[in-house]
């Protein structure tokens, strides 16, 4: 397939995944900040929402203060934030138009309808909490529909694999970013077991990767920080864990390698990351330093993005 087509499919999937992640982050932050101050401590949750979205620096160039109004606006609708939800959907639509021929009609319809709704209903942003909740649900449903359409209607060929690679690479980045910003509340030595403050922080992390229910199913335990870290990093049954994302990335890259009859640096690099995740346990990671581990992962993950681009997309 055309390199440009593969590139568009890959980025299309990334934009949709990113939009959903931003919606979840806002949703989770709204829940936490609705609690009385005694439950969440003095941290500014809106500030950490910006950090997990990776846009804190550009935000503070435009705004003085990270509060609900400003941050929701910036993450959801701001034109001057290249990865606001609005811009993600705009970019996804533009990418879709460029590769109409490589999308199934269901996928196109999902993105096109979302884009139409964005303009028709959400062009002025949201004015009430209720509106905002509706908007966030709309974004999450768009992503679910897109994912479902891709899964159910695409041919299992390189177009599909490039699209899935976009999803998993973006997802791994998002999960890692949450861990990067929140790792301190997961550190065992700062643990105050059962304290309300941590409980709400922890459940907020899980909620933002839609893993709160999953946690209970997997561990049948009250929330424990090291188990949360284990779930998000090493547990490959959780679709948003780093291990699961890398299982999928390696599989997709292998499929492409088989189809093209040749492997390259992307396959090797992805396998390297996956092997490291497979052979780690939480004890080692805590010993080594969660923060260092996550930062290395983020760098490795973005390096894989560059290698894929060089090997296939340009």
């Amino acid at each position, binding site marked *: *397939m*055309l*390199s*440009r*087509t*593969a590139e568009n499919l890959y980025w299309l999937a990334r934009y949709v995944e990113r939009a959903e992640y931003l919606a979840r982050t806002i949703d989770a932050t709204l829940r936490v900040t609705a609690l009385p101050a005694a439950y969440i401590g003095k941290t500014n949750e809106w500030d950490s929402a910006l950090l997990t979205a990776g846009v804190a620096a550009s935000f503070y160039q435009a705004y003085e203060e990270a509060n609900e109004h400003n941050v929701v606006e910036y993450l959801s609708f701001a034109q001057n934030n290249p990865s606001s939800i609005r811009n993600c959907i705009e970019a996804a639509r*533009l990418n879709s*138009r*460029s590769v*109409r*021929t490589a999308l199934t009609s269901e996928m*196109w*319809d999902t993105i*096109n*309808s979302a884009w*139409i709704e964005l303009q028709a209903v959400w062009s002025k942003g949201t004015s009430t909490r209720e509106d905002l909740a509706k908007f966030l649900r709309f974004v999450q449903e768009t992503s679910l529909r897109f994912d479902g359409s891709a899964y159910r209607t695409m041919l299992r060929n*390189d177009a599909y694999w*490039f699209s899935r690679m976009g999803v998993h690479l973006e997802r791994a980045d998002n999960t890692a970013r949450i861990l990067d910003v929140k790792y301190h509340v997961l550190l065992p030595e700062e643990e105050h077991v059962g304290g309300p403050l941590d409980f709400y922080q922890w459940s907020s992390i899980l909620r933002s990767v839609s893993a709160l229910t999953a946690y209970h199913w997997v561990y049948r335990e009250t929330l424990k920080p090291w188990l949360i870290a284990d779930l998000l990093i090493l547990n490959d049954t959780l679709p948003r864990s780093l291990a699961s994302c890398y299982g999928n990335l390696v599989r997709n890259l292998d499929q*492409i390698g088989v189809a*093209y009859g040749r492997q390259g640096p992307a396959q090797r690099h992805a396998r390297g990351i996956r092997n490291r995740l497979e052979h780690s346990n939480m004890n080692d990671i805590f010993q080594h330093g969660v923060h260092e581990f996550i930062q290395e992962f983020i760098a490795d993950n973005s390096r894989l993005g560059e290698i894929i681009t060089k090997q*296939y*997309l*340009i």
Partner: protein
Amino acid sequence: MAVAFDEMNIPGGDLRPAYQELARWLKETPPEALEYRRQEAELLFRRIGITFAVYGDSESTERLIPFDVIPRIMSAKEWAVLEKGLKQRVRALNMFLRDIYHGRDILRADIVPADLIFQNPVFRPEMNGQEVPHDVYVHIAGIDIVRVDAEDFIVLEDNARTPSGVSYMLENREIMMRLFPDLFARHRVAPVERYPDELLSALRSVAPQGASGEPTVALLTPGVYNSAYYEHSFLADKLGIELVEGRDLVVKNNEVFMRTTEGLKRVDVIYRRVDDDFLDPLTFRPDSVLGVPGLMSAYAAGNITLANAVGTGIADDKAIYSYMPDIVKFYLGEEPILKNVPTWRCREPKDLAYVLDNLSELVVKEVHGSGGYGMLIGPAATKATIEAFRDKLKREPEGFIAQPTLALSTCPTCTASGLAPRHVDLRPFVLTGSKSTTIVPGGLTRVALKEGSLVVNSSQGGGTKDTWILDE
């Protein structure tokens, strides 16, 4: 201006045979139902994303072309005449182009004035002596046809460069079949859906000699911001070929390749929807980012077929148009089946004098204009506009032609106040391959939605209709 030919009603109250069943159906169908279907059609178009961009319109970058749900109907007999005439005309266009870029018999015979060719910016000297496979220059032609009475079809314009609109022909039919299955059950409408297959065979048949048995065809688009981008992606999809932009192609050793995830892949035929001027920055406009550097040298080396060929603009130029009846006679020795609109060439002093005296009755067009831009419709224009045009004409007479205001035929059309006659034209698409010329029955009917308006261009408030050719 004469009374327009009504395609449905015969003066005196009778219906033309092709429309009888439709009229019965319309009588049975309550207006609300029609309105409901109309809205449904619009929703479908928007969802599918069939939009076009209007240049210079900052308000909305993507617009829908209004779709009228009342079909335009022709009998098989009428179509047979039209089909024959179209094939004749396109054959002549191809022979004319071959001649212009080779022996130039027609210039020596003084049928067409040489300066009209050589001083014309759409004449491409690069094509002199250049061989094209099977001597086909115009693989895809869109010939704009109007009717003024029961007998005659008149060619308003030949489009031999990158004619667009065929996606609307195909989508209009899809949507009509979805919305009005009962109406189709009551007619025998000739299908149009094989167009993509015929286009692909035509394109493959003109592959260069060195191409493999299964030549690789790609559609070259200027990109998502082009007004016809939807059509480009639609066609690439239906043909099962890659939709490429200039940056996806690269020329090496005079061969054209596309950049794929598996490395470079040779391309044999390019169905290009990029104008000559932008095809190759090394040959034409150096500032073009839409083109492929070196494409013209690969073309000259005979390693790539461009469809349509470079330089076909010289055949559909409005200044050449008036010579078409003579061109047909010259190459084919036949009387033209399709008529021309009587045309005054403002470059000729006698004609110019007549035009200046009768501006309020004439349509004056720029020789190099298209899309209905920059034309004067005398009967509808204000005095001031006419005077402004008079100055332009005097300053640069060779830039214009003039024609009588034609009473384009009308078809029943949905309007705010119910069904009413509106003026229509027709663009059939003529495909020429190595062996045959084919036309899918029908074409794109464009309708001027404003009462009394004769401008059917989508950029100026025109809409489209499904076009039915009834089988016997």
